[in-house]
């Protein structure tokens, strides 16, 4: 049976390999960075299992590793090498030679993922499923990457070392941005565990006149956006705002329809996701991937949509809720 853990181990091995290549090139900060990041992938299950048994030091060591990653990213020295014109000429020549065959492996990532997700429940070896149902989509994505890698090696007739080396080049180019989504989700968990959500909900409660429908709805909508901007994630904002404003004031006191409030309320939070650097995997990582000079370039391109959709959502809720 194929589990997500196998994909994590492969990923961990790739990170260790990238760390080794950087160490060989004398780029110590980058090497240390990827080596620490390999930890959760190679030892993640062991850390979780140990914690469940009451053994705390592996998780604490990982916690120290997280702090170490922060300090390393801040010290800099994590700059990737640039492109040269000679490489560009080689790329143009290869593109002419290989033509549309280059699209095959690239499209294999989405297409194989799609096929594995749809066919997954029917792929069985005797009684056991070939792909474990838990996190089947992510496992399928990982498998699709392996299949696509094999196809890419075949089409380009390159060696495995070249492929991994090119992967490492992109990883180095991403640098700390690659890590940011994971760290922000961690921060979300820390905020939840330290009671940040409850404190904000208490402040909101003190601030709004609860008798007014419009005031409650405005507080809910703007609260969803603001809290999503701070946490980088509408999923984190939703329970806080629902518990603080949505359920007690809008649903129970003013009789709002819970299904509509939940659905459009969540989408109001997504307007905040379009606006915030905290949603790094959507807003900062692509800016780095696309080599934009401004790290807020993607947010700049989408903020008008966010504002317009916030207005649409507010009006929809106003018409439909009560």
């Amino acid at each position, binding site marked *: 049976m194929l589990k*997500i853990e196998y*994909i994590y181990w*492969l*990923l961990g091995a790739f990170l260790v390999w990238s760390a080794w290549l950087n160490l060989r090139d004398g780029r110590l900060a980058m090497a240390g960075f990827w080596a620490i990041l390999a930890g959760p992938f190679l030892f*993640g299950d062991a850390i*979780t299992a140990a914690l469940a048994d009451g053994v*705390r030091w592996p*998780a604490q060591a990982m916690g*120290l590793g*997280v702090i170490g*990653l922060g300090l390393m*990213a*801040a010290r800099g020295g994590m700059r990737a090498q640039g492109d040269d014109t000679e490489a560009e000429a080689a*790329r143009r*020549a290869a*593109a002419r030679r290989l033509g*549309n065959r280059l*699209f095959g*492996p690239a499209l294999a*990532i*989405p297409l194989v993922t799609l096929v594995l*997700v749809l066919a997954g429940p029917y792929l069985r070896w005797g009684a056991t499923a070939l792909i474990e149902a838990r996190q089947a*989509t992510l496992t399928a994505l990982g498998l699709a*990457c392996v299949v*696509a*890698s094999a196809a*890419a090696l075949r089409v380009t007739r*390159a060696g495995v070392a*070249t492929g991994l080396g*090119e*992967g490492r*080049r992109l*990883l180095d180019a991403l640098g*700390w941005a690659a890590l940011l989504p*994971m*760290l922000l*989700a961690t*921060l979300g*968990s*820390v*905020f939840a565990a330290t009671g*940040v959500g*409850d*404190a904000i909900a208490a402040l909101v409660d003190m601030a709004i006149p609860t008798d007014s429908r419009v005031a409650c709805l405005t507080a809910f909508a703007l609260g969803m956006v603001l809290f999503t901007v701070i946490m980088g994630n509408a*999923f984190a904002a939703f329970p806080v705002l629902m518990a603080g404003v949505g359920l007690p004031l809008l649903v129970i006191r003013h009789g709002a329809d*819970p*299904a509509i409030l*939940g659905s459009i309320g969540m989408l109001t939070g997504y307007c905040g996701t379009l606006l915030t650097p905290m949603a790094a*995997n*959507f807003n900062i*990582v*692509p800016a780095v991937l*696309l080599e*934009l*000079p401004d790290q807020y*370039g*993607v947010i700049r391109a989408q903020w008008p*949509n966010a504002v317009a*959709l916030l207005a*649409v959502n507010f009006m929809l809720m106003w018409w439909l809720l009560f």
Partner: protein
Amino acid sequence: MNYWPLLGVATVVAGFVMRRNPVLVVVVAGVVSGIGAAMHPGDLLVLLGSSFVGNRALLLMVATLPVIGLLERFGLRERARDWIAGFRGLTLTRFLLSYLGLRQILSMLGLTNVAGHAQTVRPLVAPMSEAAAERSVGKLDVEERHRVAALAAATDNIGLFFGEDVFIALGAVLLIQGFYAQNGIELEPLTIALWALPTAIAAFLIHALRLVHFQRRMERAARARRAGGGAEEC
């Protein structure tokens, strides 16, 4: 009520406003928030470490890098550009609008990880958008290229966000249903999902208008450039 953990939020806001390294800002904010809640350092380390491990699925996009890197070295992005440039009647608006619709429909079917910034935007959608834009306005300058690429990434985000809420068996809808169930209100996932449709349609229409507007502005700028260039030659 202990308000001291809010210092963590203040740290985040201050860090992003001052454009400090985001990784450092986030780590410091976590530590500040823990100290504000008077957590024992050992407990804080456990919390940091175990949440970090728990969220490792978010790094899965790194698995696409070796494939994309290899294909790029053999000219994938150049080929994507040339291929799109050969289509007659294709404009930036039409291309990105098709991608937006496709992305929304895929997300509605729960296929959110099929596309994405590493999988599709960098290797295919961004270079194809540039080529589509160049078909109607001629060679782009560096700043225009960056704006078109940013717009391609924004299109991917909008298609993902305002499609996935319509899918019943995934994240958002289950979170909403779970919240109400905990509070004694039973709802069908399908009713929650259907109420996401009006916003999904609005998201498509608003982005369509913006794309039309963006393309018109680029065409105007290109005409002005050509006219200006002509005047200089006289």
